[in-house]
């Protein structure tokens, strides 16, 4: 009888959990070639490691608190976690408590799904001043990520500037603009709720380097701004008027242009807050002595390059926006893990079909998926397809004896070593206790959950009495 295939997954975010779901394939099977099929033909055991005590990655620390419906996808991950063969090792950091070379020895295969937890550099003077931070860090702060709870966020200046034109830029602009009280029924971190309710920010300027149609934001995020009460939306330097012919457009772009024309044509309602979508504008320099006092912004015009692509070119016109808070939303970026190949141009682990490549060859038994594989692109479900394809490569290698099987440890042996390295492991039951404690605390305040945001509190909840006691 064949023993179980033993797989470690690094990262319990959507990418890692979709990979676990495909490895611990449910009775329905896997969607491939237009139908559901059983791809897994032998028993599999999966251990998912995460450096945080909590699973679900950016579902917990990325998705905005006023998008609770998107967080319901955690039911998919919770179902996977409840399947036989699944174990969670939270609060265990790969590269610190356990090394990648050890995972390679202990398991038949290792899937890296550690995401992109750094920032694409902006490369302008002054970006390290106090009051200038990445939108990613700001998002982690309001979502209660334990490493960001003590972030120094000064919301006393009446203007904040967001650099970037993706969904994260619109998320942070929206959170800053929301009327006091409207976040109270969400799972936003308590410290952020207090700070935002006492915020002095009245105007949020969102800077896009290129034209409105080059914005990477999606239609729902753009349209959502219209539903904010007490917030005016302005469009500046966008040339979204009807007399400019942008050429043939796909449906998504037509919709965006329609929304922006709508915003541009709206008369000011004199609301107490406003969001300014300012296009054709590049950040030049952040000014200030010991903290951010302003952002120098250069105006651009669009030019077509030789391939017909649109490029922003500086016109030389510059203006100074006074502000106390600059949020750089120009993209998440990968960070290297020790002993793992890394492409510092793309911020990803080099791979083909999910198989990790080093020195031009695949590394047997080593795989990658999610943002660590393809870079920070796509939405939650995009990771499901990539996880499926990485798992298909892994299963194919197992079937054709391409995995380094000798030396693989039993589940019990691994458990013993991991707990000796990190006695404060949060396992699946520990997470269920945290989840239960947070939901109970939330119910009292009519919130979906009251997040625990520091490690001692999370570890205390994880070792507390079991749920439903």
């Amino acid at each position, binding site marked *: 009888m064949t023993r179980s295939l033993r797989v470690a997954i690094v990262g319990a975010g959507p990418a890692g959990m979709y990979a676990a779901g495909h490895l611990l394939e449910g009775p*329905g099977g896997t*969607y491939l070639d*237009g139908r*559901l099929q059983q791809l897994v033909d032998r028993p599999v055991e999966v251990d998912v490691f995460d450096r945080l005590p909590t699973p679900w990655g950016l579902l917990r620390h990325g998705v905005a608190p006023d*998008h609770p*419906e*998107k967080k*319901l*996808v955690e*039911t*998919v991950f919770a179902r996977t976690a409840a399947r036989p063969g699944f174990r969670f090792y939270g609060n265990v950091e790969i590269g610190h408590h356990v090394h990648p070379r050890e995972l390679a020895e202990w398991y038949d295969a290792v899937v890296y799904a550690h995401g992109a937890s750094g920032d694409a550099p902006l490369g302008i003077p002054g970006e390290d001043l106090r009051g200038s931070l990445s939108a990613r860090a700001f998002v982690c702060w309001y979502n209660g990520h334990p490493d960001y709870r003590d972030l120094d966020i000064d919301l006393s200046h009446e203007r904040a500037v967001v650099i970037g034109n993706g969904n994260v830029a619109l998320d942070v602009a929206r959170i800053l603009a929301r009327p006091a009280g409207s976040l109270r029924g969400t799972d936003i971190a308590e410290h952020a709720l207090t700070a935002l309710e006492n915020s002095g920010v009245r105007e949020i300027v969102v800077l896009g380097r290129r034209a409105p149609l080059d914005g990477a934001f*999606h*239609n*729902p995020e753009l*349209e*959502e701004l219209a*539903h904010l009460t007490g917030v005016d939306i302005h469009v500046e330097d966008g040339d979204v008027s009807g007399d400019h012919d942008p050429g043939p457009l796909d*449906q*998504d772009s037509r*919709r965006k242009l329609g929304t922006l024309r709508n915003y541009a044509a709206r008369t000011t309602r004199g609301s107490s807050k406003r969001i300014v979508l300012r296009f054709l504008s590049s950040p030049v320099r952040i000014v200030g002595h010991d903290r951010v006092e302003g952002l120098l912004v250069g105006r651009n015009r669009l030019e077509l390059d030789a391939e017909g692509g649109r490029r922003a070119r500086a016109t030389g016109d510059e203006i100074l926006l006074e502000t106390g808070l600059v949020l750089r939303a120009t993209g998440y970026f990968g960070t290297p893990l020790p002993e793992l190949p890394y492409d510092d141009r793309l911020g990803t682990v080099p791979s083909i079909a999910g198989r990790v490549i080093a020195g031009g060859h695949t590394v047997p038994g080593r795989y990658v998926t999610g943002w660590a594989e393809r870079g920070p*692109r*796509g*939405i*939650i*479900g*995009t990771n*499901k*397809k990539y996880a*499926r394809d990485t798992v298909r490569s892994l299963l194919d290698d197992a079937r054709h004896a391409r995995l380094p099987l000798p030396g693989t440890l039993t589940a019990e042996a691994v458990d013993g070593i991991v707990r000796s390295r990190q006695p404060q492991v949060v396992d699946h039951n520990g997470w269920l206790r945290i989840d239960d404690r947070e939901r109970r605390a939330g119910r009292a305040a009519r919130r979906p959950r009251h997040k625990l945001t520091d490690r001692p509190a999370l570890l205390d909840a994880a070792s507390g009495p079991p749920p439903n006691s």
Partner: protein
Amino acid sequence: VAYVIGPACVADYSCLEICPADCIRPRPDDPGFDSAEQLYIDPARCIDCDACVAACPVEAIHDAARLPAAWASYAGVNAAYFGRAS
């Protein structure tokens, strides 16, 4: 009347996996999937069976006749994806 996918969609495609009419796009291996903002139901091919409603983990799918007010435009958005008027 058909079913309509709203803006809560995260493209998890659990709906598409079980749709007996194969009327949900883009499929995971279609070229547009990686950049899709969401998935869409073709109103001309939907057979109103409602299997997708239960399959969706984020409650993004509604009967066109009972769309939440904030999502009213999505019947048109779904139809337009297939080049149809709603």
